[in-house]
């Protein structure tokens, strides 16, 4: 049994086959894989007896359930008005320069993906970003590079 099959089977066993458990199962895959591949969606569809188009449709609805390949660390910079006014464009530019990729792209070593996101609820400490589930606030073009450097050195 391959890794994906095992992952899906464990999640389905943990949460149950009923339709209302689809979201936690999709989230469980995201935690491990950062995105939902065609292969994984098909396996979930089969295990839960939900049409594959339906699982795909559900995943495509949610911004945090990616259906395109993502890096090990997904950076989501808040694009909503407070962060925008507090300089999120400069933050993004700084990240892009450091990682040598654009928003929406993934580094060749599959380590980083840069995305934008709607309000994270940290307007009082804008600008803010997420790296996977970690929040970083009151960013400056310099601090963001320091943060990323640490991630880069991590394996």
């Amino acid at each position, binding site marked *: 049994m391959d890794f994906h099959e095992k992952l899906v089977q464990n999640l389905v066993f943990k949460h149950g086959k009923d339709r209302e458990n689809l979201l936690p199962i999709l989230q469980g895959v995201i935690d491990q894989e950062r995105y939902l591949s065609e292969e994984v969606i098909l396996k979930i569809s089969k295990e839960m007896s939900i*049409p594959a188009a339906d699982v795909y*449709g559900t995943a495509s609805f949610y911004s945090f359930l990616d*259906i395109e390949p993502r890096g090990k660390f997904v950076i989501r910079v808040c694009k909503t008005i407070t962060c925008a006014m507090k300089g999120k464009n400069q933050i993004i530019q700084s990240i892009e320069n450091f990682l040598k990729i654009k928003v929406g792209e993934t580094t060749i070593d599959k380590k980083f993906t840069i995305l934008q996101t709607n309000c994270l609820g940290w307007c009082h400490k804008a600008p803010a970003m997420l790296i996977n589930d970690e929040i970083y606030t009151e960013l400056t073009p310099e601090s963001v590079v320091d943060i990323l450097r640490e991630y880069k050195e991590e394996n």
Partner: protein
Amino acid sequence: MSNMVNLTINGIAVSVEEDKTILEAAKELHIKIPTLCYHKDLCVAGNCRVCVVEQVGNHKLVASCATPVSEGMEINTNTLKVRNCRKHIIELLLTEHREECTKCYRNGHCELQELSAEYQITNQDFIDLVPDKNYTIDMLSPAIEKDDSKCIRCQRCVRTCAEIQSVGAIAVAHKGSEMKISTFFDRSLDEVVCTNCGQCIVHCPTGALTEKSYVEKVWDAIADPEAHVVVQTAPAVRVGLGEELGLGSGTRVTEKMVSALRRLGFDSVLDTNFTADLTIMEEGTELLTRLKRALVEDDPDVALPMATSCSPGWVKYIEHKYPEYLPNLSTCKSPQQMFGALAKTYYAKNIKVAPENIVSVSIMPCTAKKFEANRPEMKDSGYKDVDFVLTTRELAVMIRQAGIEFEKLNDESFDSIMGIGSGAGVIFGATGGVMEAALRTAYEIVTGREVPFDNLEITPVRGLEGVKEATVKIEGTVKEWDFLEGVELKCAVTNGLENAHQLMEAIKRGDKFYHFIEIMACPGGCLGGGGQPFPVDNEIRLKRMEAIYAEDRDLPIRKSHENPEIIQIYKEFLEKPLSHKSHKLLHTSYVKREQY
């Protein structure tokens, strides 16, 4: 009986059952409220908002299709506020609908177009969103075209595919302005679990889902002096075509259809009922052979229940969803494909035309038949067995284009040979018909007597019910079949793939055992097929069904094995059912397919 609720609509008092909606209550008062996402066959969605009405005491308008009635409710359906609001809703729907009505396949049959005409939408108050819309037009399938630019996202197709058909080839994907009806990762309908049944087409209110049209190709063939164009017409076409040409639902137009086909220029006008009868001979013999193997030879490998294989939607469904049951599927080709294989062999020889000059056209109530004719294995005559498949609707297009006044046509009858069909052949068009036809013949072969039902009408397998069961006790067998003496032949009949899904699950669990099951992909059988006229609901299906059974009653021959042309083809060409030749031309095999 449930409790009654009193309310007023436009000041008129009405009393309805408490589980009714405002829309249904208004209908009782003969007040029409426009709808788009609502369809009688489907669950309520309430997403298009076209049916909004004013409820006194509620400052917001309510969707009448999705709001249940309550005691003392006061509803107004025709106030200035309602009219203006509805008009704006239609205008907003049009902003994301690519309006090219004069070039649209559904022109004249589009619910959105009708509604815009009704509300005289002549202005453009809102920005046209279509140029910025991320839409795809999928034309890869041989049967169905899907054009997102015309989709108003009412989701009738999604509900149809999931609720009626249990297929789930299409679903709602993405959100907000990006929301669209999508297959698995937006693949072509040709690549996914889609059965091509076309129920999404008959339930779509716009031109977003249509059949792939072959009308021009057929006109080209008719115009080609070298080509001998043979046409076959399925049983359900003769009870549907009239609707599309302005006659009432369930009008029988067999003889007029024949004369129209001749006027269109088809060289031979023949009947699929003939090969329906042939299917009974082959499939009936196949069933009896399987029973013999199971009961006499104790063969553990014999697959029972045997399932019918006439419905190409069902065949593709089982290939995708229940591949482990493929040995249960009868190896008989559908009547359309049997006809195709014979048209370019037996018929060609008989009329002394070279098979390469024969163009074989079929008129079907079905869109899946277009896919079936394009299956790579359907070339047993040495050529493509069926060249083009038209739906009932496409035939009506040709009749109108040719300027034929259909109602005024004289009655004419089919050419021969392959033009005679029995009553058993006609009832293939209704759910339960194949079962009834098979029993009429098989019972008589085994016992030498007619089926013990009044006037040959096996009523337990008739009607629109989801799963119908019948048990026929076989008594007084002739010597050859005496191993069947006392056997209770258990049969089940189902229509619509959701019902088929339920039946297959029951068989899989071991809850039910049958010898023979008939499955038709569409609700009501072929008469409710994806190629039949718009609109459709159970009332219309029942009218078409009555017409089919009336057609059967009026035919002189009502049993397949008594059809003189069937007797003739076995004598001159095929020898006997399941002979070497019939295996080559009339039987087929199936493939396992992906589950998305």
